[in-house]
Structures are given as C-alpha cells and as structure tokens.
C-alpha cells in the first residue's frame, strides 16, 4: 500500500518527473527556461540541480526546431518530455507533431517508436490575453497517432505524467495553470495510472456531467449547488481524451439518462461535440433528453477581467443548465 498526503498539482507533476528521471536515464526534459530558472510557473524546480544540463535542456525560443530535435531523439533511444510554455504555442510545433511524431510508428510499420511527452499549460483566468490563454487540446485529438491526457486532480496528474513518460507513443499532457495550487491527496512513491481510463469523481443518479481538466472542479462545484435543490449529479472525468474510455462514460449515461458535456476549450467543433455525439451513438435509447454541450465562448480570450471570465463556463451556469435538463425544460 502506498500512503498519501496532500500536495499541490504542481508538486504532484514534479514528483512524477523526479521519479521517472531517477528510474530511467533516457528520460530528458527540453523546454524554455526549465533549467536553472526552474520554469516560468516553478513547474520544473529542482530538476536541473539534480540531473544537470545533460538531462534538463534549456532550448532557445525555437519551438519548431527544438521539438523536432526531441522527435529525433525519441526515435533514437531517448524519452523526452518537451515543455511548451503556453498551450497557445503548440501551433509552433504542429508540423513536427502532426506530420512526423504522430505518424512515424505507423509509416515505419513499427520500426520506430516515438516515446515522448509534450507538456503544456492552458487555462483561462490569468489575464494573459488572446495569445496566452487558449485551450487548443481539441486540435490534437483530431490527429491519429497521438494520445491526449488532461488530468484534473493532483493524484491524476502524477499518475498520468508517469504513465505518459513510460508510454512508447507521443502523449500530449495538458495541465491547467489555474490548478497548479490545488492541494489534494497524492500517493507517495510510484504511482502510475492507465491512460484511457475515466473516473467517476462524484456519484449521482439524475444527470451525468462529463467534464475535462479544470472543468471537473467546476462540475463538482455545480453538483454541490444542485444537491441543495435535491438533484443528484454524477461527475465523470475522462482523464484521457485519446484514447477515450467510451464504456465508462456510456455506462454512466445509461444510469442517469441525461448528459451534460463540459470543456474549457472552444465549443465550436470541439471536445464537447465529439463526446456528445459518442454518447448519442451509444446510448440513444437510454436518453430522456438531448445531450447538452457547454464549452468556452468562441472568441479570442480577451484580456480585461470583465470580459475574460465571461468566456469560461462557471458552476452557476452549469448547475442552471443541468437542473433545467433534469426538470424537462431542455
């Protein structure tokens, strides 16, 4: 039995990095300001001191080239964890990610693996403006060959980072910077979760709320509000978007007969649409109402605090929509 204690989400990911780097010399870190500086969010603090410049590699601000080098290193024996400082900047590595990393294993008929992790921080609410606030995880779920994970709790973050590093495929690890200070129980020592396994974060029977990443916390807050109105909401966290644990999501909806899908990225052509249609395909006969989708507003994320928070789904709005669904008003 591993014992657990409470640590922050930031510290939980760091524990996984320390653990995996001690365990396997082929694990290297690459990114901007991740070395002696310890990362712009202190998310790599202490790694450089223990593992040195050979394994904690500060790159120039050349995302495309540096990531391409990580892909080549992954094809030849290393296990790079490549940090993209802001999720918005995945646009800069897209060719190497989509046209090389995602396809190499398939195109080479298994001759080469690309065991790398792209770690990137997303999330609305820090007044960072339109080029530093987006959650573009849906883009990557569209590309066969990539795995995409999005942990919502410190324990999941530790377990999924360890799993991502051990996986022989490219895994994109989306963490929400607004979760970095979230404190919760985390197992000590080795803690590895399977990629592709959803978890019920709160049990209920009137409606299923499927939520991703930080939106799981929003869904749990909404479920609390709904409980005051005698409505029992079940909150399910896919944890991994690709592969998606369809069975667990569908089982929950078959139990509650109603579903709301919540994601912090743009709603148009996004995660909510994919999951809603998957639910409809697999559980149509069990549904008492259409599946509701709630996502981020489809605008560039504005800077001013009076505007920025309007783009983000909140617990009150979610509770209102889910309650209306249960009461037959949708």
């Amino acid at each position, binding site marked *: 039995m591993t014992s657990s204690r409470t640590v922050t989400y930031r510290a939980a990911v760091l524990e996984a990095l320390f653990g995996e780097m001690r365990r396997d010399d082929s694990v290297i870190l690459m990114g901007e300001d991740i070395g002696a500086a310890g990362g712009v969010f202190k998310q790599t603090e202490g790694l450089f001191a223990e593992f040195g410049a050979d394994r904690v590699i500060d790159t120039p601000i050349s995302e495309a*080239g540096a990531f*391409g080098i990580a892909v*080549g290193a992954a094809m*030849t024996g290393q296990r790079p964890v490549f940090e993209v400082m802001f999720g918005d900047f995945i646009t800069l590595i897209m060719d190497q990610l989509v046209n*090389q990393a995602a*396809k190499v*294993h398939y*195109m*080479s008929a298994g*001759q080469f693996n690309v065991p790398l992790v792209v770690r990137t921080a997303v999330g609305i609410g820090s007044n960072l403006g339109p080029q530093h606030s987006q959650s573009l995880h849906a883009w990557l779920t569209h590309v066969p060959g990539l795995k995409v994970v999005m942990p919502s709790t410190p324990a999941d973050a530790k377990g999924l980072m360890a799993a991502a590093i051990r996986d022989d495929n490219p895994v994109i690890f989306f963490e929400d910077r607004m979760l970095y200070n979230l404190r919760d129980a985390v197992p000590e020592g080795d803690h590895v979760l399977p990629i592709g396994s959803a978890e019920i974060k709160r049990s209920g029977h009137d409606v299923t709320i499927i939520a991703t990443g930080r939106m799981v916390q929003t869904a749990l807050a909404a479920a609390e509000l709904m409980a005051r109105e005698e409505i029992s909401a079940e909150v399910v966290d896919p944890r991994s978007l690709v592969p998606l644990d369809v069975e667990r999501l569908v089982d929950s909806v078959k139990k509650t007969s109603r579903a709301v899908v919540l994601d912090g990225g743009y709603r148009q052509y996004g995660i909510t649409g994919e999951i809603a249609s998957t639910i409809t395909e697999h559980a149509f006969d069990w549904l008492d109402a259409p599946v509701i989708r709630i996502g981020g507003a489809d605008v560039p994320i504005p800077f001013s605090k009076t505007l920025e928070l309007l783009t983000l789904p909140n617990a009150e709005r979610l509770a209102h929509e889910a309650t209306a669904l249960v009461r037959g008003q949708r």
Partner: protein
Amino acid sequence: MTAPLQKASTSSVQLNLTAKEGLQLLRSMQLIRTFEEQVRTLYSGGVIPGLVHLCAGQEAVAVGVCSLLNTQDIIASNHRGHGHCLAKGADVSRMMAEVMGRRTGYGMGRGGTLHVFDAANGNLGTNGIVGGGIPLAAGAALSAKRRGGGEVAVCFFGDGALNQGLLFEVMNMAAIWRLPVLFVCENNGFGEFTAIEDVTAGPDPIARGLAFGIPSETVDGMDVLAVRTAAQRAIDRARSGRGPSFLICMTYRYGGHHVGDKQDYKDNTEAEAWRLKDPIERFGRWLQEIDMATAETIVALKHGVEDEVRAAIGLAKAAPFPDASDLGASLHD
C-alpha cells in the same frame, strides 16, 4: 569573407582509397541510377502510383557521404531519397516493394517512396515535408552525444530547404550544443519548379552555415571523391566532439521535380553541360585512368546491379498488397 572552397581531389593516394572501395563507390552509384530508371519505367507503366521524385544526377552526394558511415550512424532523408536509402544499405527488394505499395515493403506499403524507414541501417526515413528530416537528424545526434559512442547523424536536404526557417533553428541548436550532425544540402538548382536564385537572397547560401559558426564548404557534388573528402573532414569533426558541419554539394537534377514534370523551366544547354559531368561516367573514367578498373569490370558491375534490381522487381510484383487487417495496425505501439 568568402566561403572556403574545396577543390575536387583526384589522388587515390591522398584519399587512401583501395580498388575495392573504388569499385564499391561506383557500384553503389550504378545501383541508385538503375533502381530509379526502373522506378521511372514502372511509374510510367502504372505499376507505381502516386508521385515519385528521382535523384538521377545526384548519386555522388548520397554515396560519397554514406560510404563513410557505419551502420549505427544515422541519416534522415528527404522526398528525393532513394539514393540516400540505398547508399545507407537498404535492401533493394524491400525498397522496391515499398515504392510499389506492397506488404513486404519497409513500411508494409503505408508510406511509399516518401516514407521509407530503415531502422536496422540507421535511416530515420525519407520525408514528405521539405526540411522535415533536419531536426530528426539533430535529435539523433543529441542521442548519440548522450550515449558517447561517437556516432554521427546526417540530414540530406535540397536547396528548397535552404529557405525553411526550421533549418536555421536547428543549425543554431546544433552549434550551441555541439551536436555531431552534418547538414548536407544537395543544391540541384531547383526547388520544385523554381530556380533557387529566384527565391533565395544573399550572394552565397554557404553564408547560412557560417552565420552560426558552423564549418561550411561548397563541394562539387558531381564528384564522389570530392564529396567524400569534404564529408570525411566533417565526420571527423563530429566524431571528435567538435560539432556540426554544413556542406553544399553543387549538383543537378536530370529529371523534373517528379516523374511527369514537363520541365519547361529548364534551359537545355545548361542541362547538357551538367550531363557532361555525370558522376557515374566521370568516376568510371577515373577508375580506368588510374588502373583501378577496366571497361569490362565496369560493365560487369552494371550487369550485376541490373540483375539485383530485376530480382527485386520480381519479388515486389509477386508480393501481396496490404489488406484491411493492416489498416489500423501499428497506429500505437
């Protein structure tokens, strides 16, 4: 400051080249030429679908560089990559099968000519993205440096990739990290259908390597010995921890961008002048001049590669196409 230019050497003593090595260089170039002549025929006959990009005229670059590499050394190739793959040791039958989309090919027919991977011979693949292989080779060099075994990595790219920003990002990192990597540009005069001088600023692209402090030289890419001599210096630098090198090999693409390209943009006089410098003819003559080969041995070598390619075509034609059960396999490990 002008770029250091290396004159082609024609002294076997200076090159320390044995007769066996000389014949091997010739055979390797003949094999590439013959393989591609057959690919052209098979493409024209509808046996090979899609698009194929041939390297006829450029064989000396692939052979000159790869003849100095060990199996553990890594290459990353480009869309015009048959020569690189064969020079690095690829099996002719599996190459041909892949180009023909058969299940026995290197990628079980999933990649085709643009995606020939050969892990056993250290080949990170031909590549459909111009410049796409450049960072892959640098990444392999990073791995080699960490391992400390003295391996080197080479990326081959055309003059078209000289205008990809990715090249400069990677050159910068290769220089600051002293990665054991060779940037080998095959300057054949054209990026797709466009002459390099129409789209490239600056008096000499060699300056692009020099800007990063990378030892850089322009080489006669139609002379296998000149390429080999320059590559040897670059490989020695890489193996001894002195970092990257940049070679621009001046060569010519006899064919179009792909088979079927009408090549209206080419000047016939210029094309004829380049053909007079044909790397295979020229090296064959030189081998005879220094008595390393006779006309008869050269013809016999040619017949040998023709037999090898013919056998590869026979095997590929007899091989099955992949079927539906192969479609989703190897998406993830």
